């Protein structure tokens, strides 16, 4: 069995019942079709069914039969009751006899699916343009993706402290293959104890990921963590996973009796925060890196516009002015798109645009939305999160059309056997050791 990259689509793969919508339709006289469709589109547009054709044309026993969708059917037993008044008027005016029909709920993703849908009721089909990286990773890309996921696993491993595992996040720029930021959960006081070793290891992994490392390096890396790592098994729910923030977001306040003691002995002085999930910290680090790498150098054009704002500012007390001054500098970089000649600025991405994130576990809604806000391009996770996962398990943010940004989501399937071997000693069938 091989490692695999599985695309998690924006719409759920569902049963027939979930994949269809009940509508009310009626056969109509062909000469009525034009005006009726125009009126229906006005009084009862099919907002979420734009892929569905309003009119079905088929030949029945050699005759052309035209049917039109009037409106959605209600779940009510007596469906006539919930028909919008305008539609009811049209039904009466033309003496239509409505019948129930089923149409496909979602636009077809493939030609085969479309052909199936059209057996119910015709839909339109627009083959996707195969957006970059959504499907078809070539062998070399796949190996890189697996390698990055292993970096995330390794990071989680270094933070395993004998009683619980944590989630880990690694933000990567796939264009230059640099690690931008990485982090582990910090929702419990103890999970940061190993921070020091963690960061050392990251830089070490960074070297490994960016250059070609020797086999012995990789072996050394793996064996040093051997004892620290538990057997990750996606289907087991135990105390071990209590510390994985996204799996149990509401668990931070519950102190486990056998942990309580040691925490108090430590004086509870370690930074912890119920919202410091790995992905959020990684975003914070990426933002910090951005501020450091691209400190404020503004173009004169931007400065003049902002100066203007400054002059109009109602309150121009010195303190505020200084504050705005700082902000102004920060802002000028955001403005750069296409207007700047400084090469360092033109290479600066907006937030995490174009970056990928690797997470051991599927993120919760807080983290998944944070990744929308920060404009992450692709999310890769290895283990699903049935409790609170927001990329398909409980919610499916990649399918929320109203959001202003959409990432692609992939799950990396790791055979359990390989998972264990990879973690313990980097066996031969691990594709990351090349």
């Amino acid at each position, binding site marked *: 069995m091989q490692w695999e990259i599985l695309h998690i689509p924006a719409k759920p793969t569902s049963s027939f019942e979930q994949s269809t919508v009940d509508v009310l339709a009626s056969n109509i006289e062909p000469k009525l079709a034009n005006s009726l469709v125009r009126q229906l589109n006005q009084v009862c547009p099919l907002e979420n069914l734009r892929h569905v054709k309003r009119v079905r044309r088929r030949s029945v026993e050699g005759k052309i039969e035209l049917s039109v969708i009037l409106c959605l059917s209600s779940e009510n037993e007596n469906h006539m009751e919930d028909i919008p008044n305008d539609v009811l008027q049209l039904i009466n005016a033309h003496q239509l006899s409505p019948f129930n029909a089923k149409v496909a709920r979602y636009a077809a993703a493939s030609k085969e699916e479309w052909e199936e849908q059209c057996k119910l009721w015709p839909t339109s089909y627009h083959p996707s343009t195969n957006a970059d990286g959504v499907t078809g990773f070539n062998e070399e890309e796949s190996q890189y993706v697996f390698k990055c996921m292993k970096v995330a696993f390794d990071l989680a491993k270094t933070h395993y402290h004998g009683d619980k595992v944590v989630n880990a996040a690694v933000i990567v720029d796939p264009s230059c293959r640099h690690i931008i930021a990485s982090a582990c959960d910090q929702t419990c006081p103890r999970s940061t104890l190993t921070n020091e070793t963690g960061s050392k290891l990251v830089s070490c992994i960074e070297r490994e990921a960016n250059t070609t490392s020797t086999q012995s390096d990789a072996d050394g890396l793996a064996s040093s963590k051997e004892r620290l790592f538990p057997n990750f098994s996606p289907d087991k*729910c*135990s105390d071990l996973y*209590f510390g994985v923030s996204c*799996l*149990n*977001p*509401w*668990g*931070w*306040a*519950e*102190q486990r009796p056998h942990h309580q003691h040691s*925490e*108090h002995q430590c004086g*509870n002085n370690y930074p912890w*925060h*119920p*919202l410091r999930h790995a992905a959020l910290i990684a*975003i*914070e680090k990426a*933002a910090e890196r*951005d*501020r450091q790498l691209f400190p404020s150098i503004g173009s004169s*054009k*931007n400065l003049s*516009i*902002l*100066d*203007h*704002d400054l*002059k*109009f500012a*109602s309150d121009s007390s010195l303190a505020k002015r200084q504050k*705005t001054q*700082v*902000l102004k500098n*920060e*802002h000028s970089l*955001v*403005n750069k798109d296409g*207007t700047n000649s400084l090469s360092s600025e033109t290479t600066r991405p907006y*937030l995490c645009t174009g970056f990928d994130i690797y997470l051991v576990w599927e993120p*919760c*809604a*807080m*983290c998944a*939305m*944070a990744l*929308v*806000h*920060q404009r992450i391009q692709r999310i890769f996770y290895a283990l699903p999160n*049935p*409790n*609170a996962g927001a990329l398909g398990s409980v*919610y499916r*943010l990649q399918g*929320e059309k*109203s*959001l*202003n940004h959409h990432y692609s989501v992939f799950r990396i399937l790791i055979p359990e056997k390989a998972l264990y071997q990879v973690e313990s000693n980097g066996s031969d069938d691990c594709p990351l050791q090349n």
Partner: protein
Amino acid sequence: MALSVGADSPSTLKFMELALDQAKFALDNLEIPVGCVIVEDGKVISSGSNRTTVTRNATRHAEMEAIDILLEKWQKIGLDQSQIAEKFSRCDLYVTCEPCIMCATALSILGIREVFYGCANDKFGGCGSILSLHKSGSKNLCREGVLPHKGFKCTGGLMSEEAIALFRSFYEQGNPNAPKPHRPVQVLQ
């Protein structure tokens, strides 16, 4: 909840006004104007305004800012997790715009008591507009040993016009991310 106040009671509006002040502060700093206050026992104990632009961190929403202040404060005086959870369960949030999906989840994670918001957020609102994260989850959905999704009471539409007016002025004159004007801006005569 005997202490719960009506949605348009004077004290509720007073707190929302303070949240609006925070939003104005954000606007003055060229940030998207959203502000909030957190109230415990009728007293404002924390406040925050949006800081996404200056930090280049799009998760630094007003709610997150106000929450972080409290966590730091409470940890400094030595409160442990269960004590901090207890504190949050007595806190209410007043925010000028409906919390987004991220913030609504965060508020649920912390176990805040009640949320009052100004205008709805029909792009990414997490308290009814897109998802309803303020509603508690069912226990049977969760596996053994995992705590269920916590809900909180949520009331929207408080002084929403004021909140929207701030957004409007931001997009009209203050958005540093807006495309450059076609004609050069006239400097003061």
